[in-house]
């Protein structure tokens, strides 16, 4: 009886370790496939090189890094005003009933397939940009707008949870001192929820950096260092997805190496978010 219980506990421990194993396997395989070329080309040359032409053996992913940074920054700029409005409004100015209805609706945004977002960018945004701002359509601007919408639910949902986690006594305390609700939010609630909201934003950045299919459909994908919002750009993820089908040899390794850069970026973002959200809990 006892040994059976121990066996079960051991089995459960194995399942619990599965996420660690998978994580390490992912790291192992990506590094094993991609590291050789980075070492051969040189880290500096690979990360800061501006020429990507695999046929000529030139593997510089700097344009993709810049493209990813531009699009991610744009997405955050688009997303923040909307997601923070939603979070603050729903947490502080609405009734639990309204919150209970609207929050799942916003979370439903996360359920829409990313290819559908990309498609909406193609059929709605491109014509709008072409008609009103000029250019062809596929650009940093369109990718930023679509990605901004895509990361709305992530940020909103975490921000609402962080705001709701602020003890009710903070609100009562501040209001009873004669502050208006907005003053209370600004002076008491937002500072208390800061870490949580920040960790939500970091996770949103992570999602934007990692998004692939929608970005391919709307960012234009040219390997150039963009100069303006209306230039097309290629992200790290798009670089992998676009060329993987036909890549062989060094070229394939270079795509895995792009994956390494992506993986490390995401890990750093994850660790920051993790630390921030833990700090939020400790408070």
């Amino acid at each position, binding site marked *: *009886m006892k040994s*059976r*219980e121990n066996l*079960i506990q051991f089995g459960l*421990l194995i*399942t*619990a370790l*599965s*996420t660690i194993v*998978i*994580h390490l*396997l*992912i790291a192992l395989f*990506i590094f094993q*496939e991609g590291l050789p070329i980075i070492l051969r080309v040189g880290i500096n040359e690979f990360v800061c090189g501006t020429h990507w032409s695999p046929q000529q053996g030139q593997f510089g992913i700097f344009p993709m890094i810049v493209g990813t940074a531009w699009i991610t920054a744009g997405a955050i700029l688009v997303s923040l*005003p*909307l997601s923070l*409005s*939603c979070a603050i*409004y729903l947490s502080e*100015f609405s009734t639990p009933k309204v919150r209970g209805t*609207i929050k*799942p609706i*916003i979370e*439903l945004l996360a*359920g*829409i*397939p*990313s*290819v*559908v*977002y*990309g*498609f*909406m960018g193609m059929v*709605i945004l491109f014509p709008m940009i072409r008609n009103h701002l000029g250019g062809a359509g596929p650009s940093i601007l369109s990718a930023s707008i679509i990605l901004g919408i895509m990361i*709305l639910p992530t940020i*909103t949902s975490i921000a609402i949870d962080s705001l709701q986690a602020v003890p009710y006594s903070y609100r009562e305390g501040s209001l009873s001192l004669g502050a*208006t609700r*907005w*003053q209370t939010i600004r002076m008491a609630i937002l500072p208390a929820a800061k870490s949580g909201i920040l960790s939500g934003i970091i*996770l949103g950045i992570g*999602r934007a950096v*990692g998004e*692939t*299919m929608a970005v391919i*459909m709307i960012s234009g994908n040219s390997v150039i260092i963009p100069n303006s919002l209306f230039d097309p750009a290629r992200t790290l*993820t798009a670089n*992998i*997805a676009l060329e*993987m089908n036909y890549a062989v040899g060094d070229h394939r390794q270079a*795509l*895995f190496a792009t*994956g390494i850069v*992506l*993986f490390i970026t*995401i890990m750093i973002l*994850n660790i920051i*978010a*993790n630390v921030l959200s833990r700090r939020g809990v400790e408070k």
Partner: protein
Amino acid sequence: MLKPILLEKLVKKILFVGTAITVFILFFIIFYILKNGLAVIDMEFLLSSPKDLGRAGGIFPCIVGTIVLSLIAILIATPLGVGAAIYLTEYTRKGRLISIIRFFTECLSGIPSIIFGLFGFVLFVVYLGFGWSILSGGLTTAFMLLPTIIRTSEEAIKAVPDYYREVSLSLGGTKWQTIVKVVLPSALPGIATGIILGIARSIEETAVVIFTAGSVLHLPTSLFDSCRTMSVHFYILAREGISMENAYGTAAVLIITILLINMFAYWLMHRLIAKYS
């Protein structure tokens, strides 16, 4: 300088507008896709094979591919995820190992699907020799779903009141009997919610699937066949401009499926909340 009261009113209006825009975007996307896609959907579209790369005909093989791939993913991710959740909640709630497991689970949920795709491609397609197949796709998707299922199951198990455990133990139940007979049945709606949301995620996923299951447009006959899921089919139709009409139709089927699944999940969640509060 505005008076505080006026400022508050202004802020409230601005925040309301922000919220309204967000909700509007969601409804607009759904409305737009359904408006253009519903007309395409009929029994023939759902039940016939595509012709001429998808320019004509239906999406039946894609529906089958999507269902089978999701099923495999869920069948693998559920025992692993629920097992992990049981271990994390019932056996040890604190300790170094637990926080390491938690950290990796969090990280895994942040890893972009394209990385999962690369990984699944090397491990299953190439290294284990499964080729582009439903099996490779299902396994890789399962790994991607794992964090979601662990997290929701953990929440659901934690929500089961401790006195149920005490009662079962005091009646001579072993720990495992208590978990199987009392804890899991009570947590079932919550666990099911996680599984259902996992199904939804596996249906949406495109990057992972295209790298591991390929995009062959035939009705799959074995787990080692390549398949094209609805998301992948839609992506190819839209991006390569093969047929806008059928792209809208496929998108509409996708959106309706996701909507129904999400609504069902929220309904289950509410049952769970109603049960314990």
